[in-house]
């Protein structure tokens, strides 16, 4: 008999929130949107429950829930933009909103210009230290795609670094 999943305990979840916020900040256009994403992810997590035997697995799962929420949100936004364009006379070709946290001025030129998929992967692999397999699961892609996306992301970032040399010393993110 499949047992009902035990409810997530608040303390375990609480400890992971800063990392979820950080991951969300690398995806969303601003801090408020990022926190909204975290909230959606927490809601989904608390509604569904998770078998917490491995904290590491829980973390990877939460990243995947958050990423899923971002993708859903993103799709909705794109759809909405398309509809909105039907009603607006001017041809607004607005560039993607710059990510103020991972800004060009803060020494990692171009991170914000990567695609959200590339940013998510670099965050999970380089910052969160997820194994390739875990990152693949969190993003819902095969490991092979992780490797090719990682390669493209790093080359793109490198190319932009070479174009725009860092103008200031390393700054920690606020």
């Amino acid at each position, binding site marked *: 008999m499949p047992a009902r999943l035990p409810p997530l305990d608040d303390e375990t979840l609480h400890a992971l929130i800063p*990392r979820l916020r950080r991951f969300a900040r690398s995806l969303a256009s601003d801090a408020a949107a990022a926190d909204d994403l975290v909230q959606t992810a927490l809601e989904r997590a608390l509604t569904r429950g998770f078998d917490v035997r491995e904290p590491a697995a829980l973390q990877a799962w939460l990243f995947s829930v958050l990423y899923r929420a971002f993708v859903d949100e993103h799709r909705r936004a794109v759809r909405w933009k398309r509809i909105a364009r039907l009603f607006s006379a001017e041809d607004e070709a607005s560039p993607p909103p710059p990510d103020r946290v991972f800004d060009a001025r803060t020494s990692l030129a171009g991170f914000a210009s990567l695609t959200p998929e590339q940013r998510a992967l670099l965050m999970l692999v380089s910052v969160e230290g997820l194994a390739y397999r875990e990152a693949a699961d969190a993003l819902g892609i095969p490991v092979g795609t992780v490797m090719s996306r*990682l390669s493209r992301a790093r080359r793109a970032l490198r190319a932009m670094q070479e174009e725009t040399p860092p103008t200031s010393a390393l700054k920690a993110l606020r």
Partner: protein
Amino acid sequence: MTIKTLHDAPTDDELHAYVDGRLDPARRAAVVAWLEANSERAAQVEGWKRDAERLRVLAANPEHWVPNAALTPAQVRRGLQARRRRRMGIAASWVFAFVIGGGAGWQMRDLHPAPSSLPMADAVAAYRQFAEADAPPMEFDTARADDLQRWLQRHFGEAGRVPDLSQAGYRLMGGRLLSTEQGAAAMLVYQDGSGARVGFYLRPRGRLAGDGQRRDGDLLAQYWSHRGTSFALVSDAADAAARALPRLLENG
């Protein structure tokens, strides 16, 4: 480049695994040795490492960010509960509306007193209201036949299908949903090439004793039941062709 270094040349994937510290020690040593001999790739790999390090520094210490009070598990739980309560409220108001609506429908029914002791009197009444030539338009016309089919299936399960009477020369004109003492009912109206109409009626089985037929003024109702559903075919009493339809409906 010597034969040996060619042989040892790491793949792109291995170079990334090296950057991320995911190579086993032996392979790692081989990659380090190869990079020493290949300065161009070594510079690229160094760049990747540096970028990763910068990203880590940029993203360091998220626990020191200004906290957001909405993002605590307790707060999120409270939000979820509040939302659930709101949904329950909405659901309750739907039920309320349904009861009121049903009540109103029931009173309407009393305005057309049908001798309810007669079998399938409701079918005949429905036919008079909806299948006569001057009836208002169907709520399910043929363009929405799929919706009608779905609705029937939901309420009547296996019995709830839109019969195909084309074999007998009748085509579907549309359908109407009704409310009866026994529950939801439907009247499907068909017409043949000469303009003769028949109504196929179905509703949950009530106290209907058995199969049969009866005349009601100028109309003929042929009725039968199967499992939990009662059916009636209502037609002009003079329409001889319609008398063969129940057999077609029962078998089809």
